């Protein structure tokens, strides 16, 4: 009387969610502080920390590219997963629709980030 079991593909999204969660816990608050408080208010950091030429140089280096890509993409996948499950919790079980919307946005964001970072060149 064994039911047929379908393997869940959740581990993919769960792994991206976990990686994004870890990364956002490690870097999120610091990034919010730097980009949202320190720079606009002129605290602690030199005024030109986020100047165009500095940021450009940063994302032209492959390490900088990798960092910016990981932060954007994994944060997005983390958020998509969280929002998808929260929708379920508040009673919106749009199923495929909600899934496409949440993970689709993360995918689009990932592709745009990847494309732009490559287009900037090395």
């Amino acid at each position: 009387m064994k039911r047929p079991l379908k393997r869940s593909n959740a581990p993919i999204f769960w792994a991206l969610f976990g990686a994004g969660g870890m990364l956002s816990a490690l870097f999120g608050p610091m990034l919010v502080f730097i980009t949202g408080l320190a720079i606009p208010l002129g605290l602690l950091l030199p005024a030109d920390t986020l100047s165009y030429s500095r940021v450009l140089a940063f994302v032209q280096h492959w390490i900088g590219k990798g960092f910016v890509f990981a932060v954007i993409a994994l944060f997005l996948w983390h958020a998509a997963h969280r929002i998808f499950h929260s929708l379920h919790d508040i009673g919106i079980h749009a199923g495929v629709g909600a899934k496409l919307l949440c993970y689709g946005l993360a995918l689009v964001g990932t592709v745009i980030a990847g494309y732009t970072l490559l287009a900037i060149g090395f």
Partner: protein
Amino acid sequence: MAEQPKTIEIEVLRYHPEKDKTPHTQVFEVPFTDDMSVLQGVQYIKDYLDGSLSFRWSCRMAICGSCGMMINGIPSLSCQTFLRDYYPARVRVEALAHFPIERDLVIGMEGFIEKLESIQPYIIPKEPRTPAQGEYLQTPEQLAKYEQFSSCINCLLCYAACPQFGLNPGFIGPAATALLHRYNVDSRDGAQAERMELINSEEGVFNCTAVGYCSEVCPKHVDPANAVNQNKTNSAADYFLRFLSPKGGAK
């Protein structure tokens, strides 16, 4: 002069499917003493006020797991919840949440029993063994790996606490996962791969969103949430590593 006897109001969710369209509540006035459990309260109702009230109980000492009820909205064993903690306010007693009501406080357990069967809750030896080979030996460390998960009394409080089980009754849920884990980490057992199919499936651990309320209400400190979370990691490893395994791994 003797003191005026005290009473407490118990509000009970009633439902007799043969005559009630929907469940409704009924309030009973029950003599109160401060050593009375909620179970004793409903037993008083059945014995002296309304013999048609139905509920399950057996041991009266938090061992059998049959007296689970929602008490003021919290999944609880009624035999270890005391009326004095509510007195003089009214206490609300309902059937466990997320389960079909069979009659009054009695829930239908078929769904859970099926899950229990599906996890194969018994030791499946790695290789056949005869009594002549003697007993299995286990170290204290090997015992410690599963001991906590073997204390489950199938009271189902954790299912009543789990919002994800409430939304998707197909989810194998906290207690069944804890018990599955109990056998999977037992050094005598050899059926991990079979049981992992269930963990990995769409009914499996990824239904859990790490709410953790199951472990909070568990009267036996089984910590089912811990078993579920350990198996998310196991399942994710299984998902990705099967591509690397030479045997091709599971489907």
